[in-house]
């Protein structure tokens, strides 16, 4: 923004005014649409054990942020950890997303509150008992009927009033929403025809319904119908291929969701028909 010439600034102001015309609360930046905080599962790290930390987003009603595959629009939040020497962060565990939007543009993301948690590990020689000094730079885009980009520098400083139980509860709630590996008894395969992937899941007991969330963009048509059909040993989901899919793929990765707290990671080998 600093680099903008005068004309650019005038233009930006005009854009903002027009974009927000008729909205009394509209000139607020992205931060007013959500609160973002760095929290941890425990008051101290235990030697040899990872300390779970997380970026907690609390969104105003109607606003959303995005899953690791955002779907047709938007982008996932990006977290850049700033850790003491000797500490490393594992990957973010993305909770089960919801399908957002309707019509021809469909996204995957979160409304309300979401915790993006990751394990932090210290060097084994370190006898860490107190909370390490951690911070993170977070970039995100928050959308409703409009999108607002935002960023935050957040530091781990402990819960208000020392209420560690409240923070721990948020981690426990989130763990219950994390996708799990598909049960070993499941057999998941996919058949590719010209316009569809037909995902077959052999699973007991019979599920009354299921939906698929693709891990990679540009594989399935996000706004396409997902036709569910019970089969003798499980069910079948017929997914429309994305117009952006130009090369054959050998595996379809994503989540099979049977209900809240029941998201399963699958990697279906694809055979052509």
């Amino acid at each position, binding site marked *: 923004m600093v680099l903008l010439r005068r*004309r*650019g600034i*005038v233009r930006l102001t005009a854009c903002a005014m027009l974009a927000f015309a008729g909205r009394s609360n509209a000139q607020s930046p992205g931060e007013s649409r959500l609160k973002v905080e760095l929290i941890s599962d425990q008051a101290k790290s235990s030697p040899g054990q990872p300390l779970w930390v997380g970026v907690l987003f609390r969104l105003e009603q109607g606003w959303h942020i995005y899953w690791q595959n955002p779907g047709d*629009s938007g982008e996932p939040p990006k977290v850049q950890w700033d850790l003491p020497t000797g500490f490393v962060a594992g990957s973010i565990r993305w909770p089960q997303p919801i399908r957002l939007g*309707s019509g021809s*543009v469909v996204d995957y993301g979160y409304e309300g509150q979401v915790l993006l948690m990751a394990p932090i590990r210290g060097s084994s020689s370190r006898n860490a008992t107190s909370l390490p000094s951690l911070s993170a730079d977070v970039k995100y885009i928050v959308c409703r009927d*409009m999108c607002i980009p935002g960023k935050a520098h957040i530091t781990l400083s402990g819960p208000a009033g020392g209420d560690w139980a409240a923070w721990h509860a948020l981690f426990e709630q989130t763990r219950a929403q994390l996708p799990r590996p598909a049960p070993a008894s499941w057999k998941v395969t996919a058949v590719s025809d010209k316009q569809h992937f037909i995902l077959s899941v052999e699973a007991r007991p019979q599920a009354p319904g299921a939906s698929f969330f693709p891990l990679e963009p*540009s594989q399935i048509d996000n706004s396409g119908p997902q036709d569910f059909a019970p089969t003798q040993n499980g069910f079948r989901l017929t997914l429309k291929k994305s117009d*952006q899919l*130009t090369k054959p793929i050998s595996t379809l990765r994503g989540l099979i969701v049977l209900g809240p707290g029941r998201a399963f990671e699958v990697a279906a080998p694809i055979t052509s028909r």
Partner: protein
Amino acid sequence: MRKRLAAITVLGFTLVAFSIAWAARVGESAPEFTATDTNGQIHKLSEYQGKFVVLEWTNRGCPYTQKHYNSGNMQRLQRDWTSRGVVWLTVVSSAPGKQGYVTASEENAYLKQANAAPTAVLLDPAGTLGHLYDAKTTPHIFIIDPKGALIYNGAIDDRPTTDVSDVNGAKNYVSIALEEATSGKPVSNPTTRPYGCSVKYAD
């Protein structure tokens, strides 16, 4: 969907319905359209046979669109390619009451202020053109060759962010596709994933 079903019930429109369903596929004929620009002039795709046509979906309230206009990137592309004979049609598919909806005079004032240089801006408040091409995001770019075939469908570049600082150094798919196509080569990356805000269609 409702629209498509309605079309199917009228036998004569069955073909139209199918062309909508499989509209903007690279390598196939780009769907014909008729649309009105901000000066009241009517544009038909078929009138531009013999020229390359770029369709650029826009919403000036969208931070991804702003990235390319505030940096001057989009205006530069428009100027560069229209000066080389390319027809550049910017499309606004925001519905009335939705972000990015503009009247003709508002858009004309903005074009002047932004120093933008498309051939024309098509107003599509009903989303007809947007749905015909299945435009998903702002920006979302389509390129049509002089024979009327769709040769590019996707993003403006390879940096799906709102950061103005990402414009420099990005791989601009639109310029690359036009450079290749105007020198008679096949487009090396004809389909990419568009990124941006969702197009603000009517509910």
